[in-house]
């Protein structure tokens, strides 16, 4: 896990430092950063993927669409996102 902190210039008052944590996941066979604790719903949103047309697998288990919003990813998770493509 890596820690990135910065001081948001436009914000005044109590919020002085914002700290964001990132984790590495393997997404469709490529190593990638995601915000720590991202849900699958959040990941799909970040990627611009319509959830209605894909299936998501985490560490070889399918995560049903109804669980996308509540399923939190962890450091090192292997995520596969598949959809339908041309085929015979």
């Amino acid at each position, binding site marked *: 896990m890596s820690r990135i902190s910065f001081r948001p210039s436009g914000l005044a008052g109590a919020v002085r430092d914002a700290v964001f944590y990132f984790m590495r996941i393997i997404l469709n066979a490529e190593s990638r950063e995601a915000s720590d604790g991202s849900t699958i719903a959040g990941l799909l949103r970040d*990627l611009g993927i319509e959830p209605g047309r894909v*299936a998501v697998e985490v560490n*070889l288990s399918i995560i049903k669409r109804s669980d996308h919003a509540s399923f939190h990813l962890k450091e090192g998770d292997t995520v*596969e996102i598949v*959809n*339908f493509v*041309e*085929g*015979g």
Partner: protein
Amino acid sequence: MEEQDMDDKLVIRGIEFRSRLWVGTGKYKDFEETRRAVEASGSDVVTVAVRRVNIVDRKSGNLLDFIDPKKYKILPNTAGCYTVEDALRYSRLAREAGISDLIKLEVIGDEKTLFPDTWGLLKATEILAKEGFIVLPYTNDDPIMAKRLENAGAAAVMPLAAPIGSGLGIRNPFNIRIILETVNLPVIVDAGVGTASDAAIAMELGCDAVLINTGIAGAKDPIAMAEAMKHAVIAGRLAYKAGRIPKKLYATASSPIEGML
């Protein structure tokens, strides 16, 4: 399909199919050509494969933007799977990504022939049928295996006409006939249909449907070939239902002898 007898519908596990020609969506120039060919074929079933989403290029578009799942029945396949485990994994992902329990089950045995590994196919059929899938297995033109697949819970059998993409037509029409007599399931010829007459022969034998991909997509004019296949399937079905004349070695005159000078 206004020309077709509307009562002559193919029904598999309660799902009604308007067309007896099923088409694949692989190997087209682009999605627009796919759309036009599918439309020209008059088919209401299209097969698709399950693959990773393109994460990098999100603008490349998706097949389902061109083939409306509300208009067509989407039949996912497990193409490219060489083991039971992979076939199960892809089937389950397909069900999650889609809207139905339909799966065109392929367990491939060999890269060169793409012949099915029927041992693995049988095992996968049994497991998936128990999980509630409507399993349509791509199999050999082997009546014994067809019967075993039926007993394992297959909803139809899909014997090959010839190797996938070969265009060789029906290599063993006699086996296809025996399969038709052996199983009490719809028989859908899958793979190897090269031109319209091949499709017509399959239907004349009494097959319930024909699935074609390369035969259409690989033609010089895929849109025209899609239409040719559509007519061939309709013609073959009508001829089967009409009952053909027996083949004889010698002639029988069509015109009367009586009244001749």
